[in-house]
């Protein structure tokens, strides 16, 4: 059947099973919008900024595992999307971003709203395509979805010139594509797996370090089984939270710059480290030279380039985390050797000693609202079941520390790029996917302003997310660094002229609440949660001097943490 490029695109999205398309119209995509108008298989969502579109698609993807799909126009539409594309790239989130382009004949002529979208996005996508012939459109779209969702996932851009959307070609849905240059490995090497198991079982002070790859690879169940069968302590990166139940005894908390004392000390002291779907990010590792000085390291990852990139490992296993953990479980079952129970008991004693420091305690008798208390209360009220999207700053670290996640895909945050403005649109994206669940956005008075316009999108589509703003009047995380490392020169971190957030929320048609007394926190949260069908903006006025502890300064080792001193 002969269809126009725009028709092919719409038909393809339907055939691919795309539920939501987060898009913003413009000249180069008018033919596409005309076709979208005539169909209802794919629900088009209109954000208020292309950055919002990308973060919404991203929040949808993170909370479901399905690819997030975005449509923007050429030029400024594409450049506005770049922050969201880079955010997804850094955290390996599957997304397909369709950018309109000026007509083929005009490419290279500095035409109105022309930018080299393929060139601009090249360093922050898994791959990108420019479709020059309508005959290639359907196959290219299929390749984009295939590349975005397989192997180590990531965003893929498809740039479509306007004339291609008007010209006609035959359409058949390409159910599968062959790409000779792209075939990610999923099965781990049998020999390496046996070697790893032997090393693991021989450990006296083992440690499991799990990352976002476990969430992306849908392998929480395998991870839980392996860790519980072995009885080993487990820590997680910021990106991996929720892959292993956060309240389980074997979970020693997050590691790294704002990890727990016990997690970091156990990293420092372990003799065998099992890294699973993690990439040894600098915020996790600290000083490479001081990293796990006594450990033999096993590293399971789907991306060969992640292995020995930062830290040289002893037993690399390239493969899908799910497949490899499955094979490890099978091998463990038939293994004669078992974990060294006696050594493990001594190791746990040592860990409990570190845990007894209670590194996350804070002054809970303060007259001022402590951000930690807000999150602990929210955790209690939601039983750890909420989807929590976060912005970037102190509030993000507090959420990671004080909201122990039960399940994967519930913690939605920009870990790699650290994009302020991510939280609200990402929460909305998650809410589209989970209309009956509690979805919250944890944010700060700085971050929320970066995508505040999406309050209108929330109104238009009736998305009752709960915004928990920890308003400390500062760009708190930067203020903290200035306090610690820059002689308390609070350069440009005090946010004068903040809006009245309640009125702001109300002007968009939402409910605003201002809470400034610790005694009112629980009541306010309960009230907001009870308003099931309303977006509630909770403006918590928190202690402006609160800092995130523990802290491992950049360039330090895991055993050199700063702890909070309580009076």
């Amino acid at each position, binding site marked *: 059947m002969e269809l126009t490029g725009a028709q092919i695109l719409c038909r393809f999205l339907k055939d691919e099973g795309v539920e939501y398309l987060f898009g913003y119209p413009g000249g180069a995509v008018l033919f596409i919008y005309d076709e979208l108008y005539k169909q209802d298989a794919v629900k088009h969502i209109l954000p208020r900024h292309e950055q919002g579109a990308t973060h919404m698609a991203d929040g949808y993807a993170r909370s479901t595992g399905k690819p997030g799909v975005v449509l923007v126009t050429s030029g400024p539409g594409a450049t506005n999307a770049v922050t969201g594309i880079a955010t997804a790239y850094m955290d390996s989130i599957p997304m397909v971003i369709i950018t309109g382009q000026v007509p083929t004949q005009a490419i290279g002529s500095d035409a109105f709203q022309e930018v080299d979208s393929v060139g601009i996005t090249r360093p922050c996508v898994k791959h990108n395509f420019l479709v020059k012939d309508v005959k290639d459109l359907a196959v290219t779209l299929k390749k984009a979805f295939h590349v975005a969702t397989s192997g180590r996932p990531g965003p893929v851009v498809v740039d479509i010139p306007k004339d291609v959307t008007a010209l006609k070609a035959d359409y058949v849905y390409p159910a599968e594509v062959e790409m000779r*240059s792209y075939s990610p490995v999923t099965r781990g090497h049998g020999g390496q797996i046996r070697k790893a198991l032997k090393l693991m079982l021989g450990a006296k002070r083992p440690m499991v370090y799990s990352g976002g790859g476990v969430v992306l690879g849908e392998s929480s169940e395998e991870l839980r089984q392996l860790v519980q069968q072995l009885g080993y302590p487990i820590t997680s990166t910021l990106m991996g939270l929720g892959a292993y139940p956060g309240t389980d005894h074997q979970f020693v908390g997050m590691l790294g710059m704002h990890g727990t004392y016990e997690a970091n000390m156990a990293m420092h002291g372990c003799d065998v480290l099992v890294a699973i779907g993690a990439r040894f990010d600098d915020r996790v590792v600290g000083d490479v030279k001081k990293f796990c000085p006594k450990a033999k390291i096993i590293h399971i990852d789907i991306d*060969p380039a992640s292995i020995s990139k930062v830290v040289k490992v002893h037993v690399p296993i390239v493969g899908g985390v799910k497949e490899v953990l499955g094979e490890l479980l099978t091998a463990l079952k038939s293994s004669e050797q078992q974990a060294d129970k006696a050594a493990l008991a001594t190791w746990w004693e040592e860990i409990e000693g570190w845990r007894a420091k209670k590194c996350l305690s804070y002054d809970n008798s303060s007259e001022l609202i402590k951000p930690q208390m807000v999150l602990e209360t929210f955790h209690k009220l939601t039983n750890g079941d909420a989807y929590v999207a976060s912005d970037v700053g102190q509030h993000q670290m507090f959420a990671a520390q004080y909201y122990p996640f039960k399940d994967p895909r519930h913690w939605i945050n920009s870990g790699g790029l650290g994009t302020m403005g991510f939280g609200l649109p990402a929460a909305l994206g998650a809410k589209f996917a989970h209309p009956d669940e509690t979805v919250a956005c944890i944010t700060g008075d700085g971050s929320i302003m970066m995508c505040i316009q999406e309050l209108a999108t929330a109104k238009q589509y009736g998305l009752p997310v709960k915004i928990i703003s920890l308003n400390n009047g500062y760009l708190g995380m930067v203020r903290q660094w200035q306090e610690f490392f820059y002689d308390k020169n609070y350069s440009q971190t005090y946010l004068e002229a903040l809006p009245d957030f309640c009125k702001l929320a109300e002007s968009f048609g939402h409910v605003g609440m201002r809470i400034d007394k610790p005694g009112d926190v629980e009541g306010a949260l309960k009230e907001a949660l009870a308003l099931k069908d309303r977006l509630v903006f909770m403006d918590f006025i928190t202690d402006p001097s609160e800092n995130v502890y523990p802290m491992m300064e950049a360039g330090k080792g895991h055993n050199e943490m700063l702890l909070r001193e309580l009076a």
Partner: protein
Amino acid sequence: MRHIIAMLMENEPGSLSRVAGLFSARGYNIHSLCVAPTDDPTVSRLTLVTREEDEGIVEQITKQLNKLVDVIKVLDLTEGEHVERAMMLIKVRATGARREELKRLSDIFRGRILDVSNSTYTIEVTGVGAKLDAFIDALEPKSILEVVRSGALGIGRGTKSLRI
């Protein structure tokens, strides 16, 4: 150490810029680069020479290249026995008695004189980089008018071959 990395990739617009972009984005060194389609017009072969002290970085380079979606195969030729060639075209001032002398020098280096004018020779020399350097060194610096050198090409010795 110097490494010669050979790869096969899709012969598509943008493939080369992905490779070049990878090197600039990650701060890897490229000493030279050669690229052209192969006997299969849909496949290009790219040969690049890099000098990195840290072998970990060389390992990262090959892994990152392999990760590019357009790249089909990557081989570090330096890991095995291989032959290597680069080509140079050089235009030199050749007048009077110097004409004979230059002709002899070119013969010693198995060069070929490709173009002659009443005051110049254009000579082609192929070989490993060191040989090309030696030819330049053997010339009177003032007589050199123009030099154009290709990057190195490399191929493994024996029956093994880099093909799809």
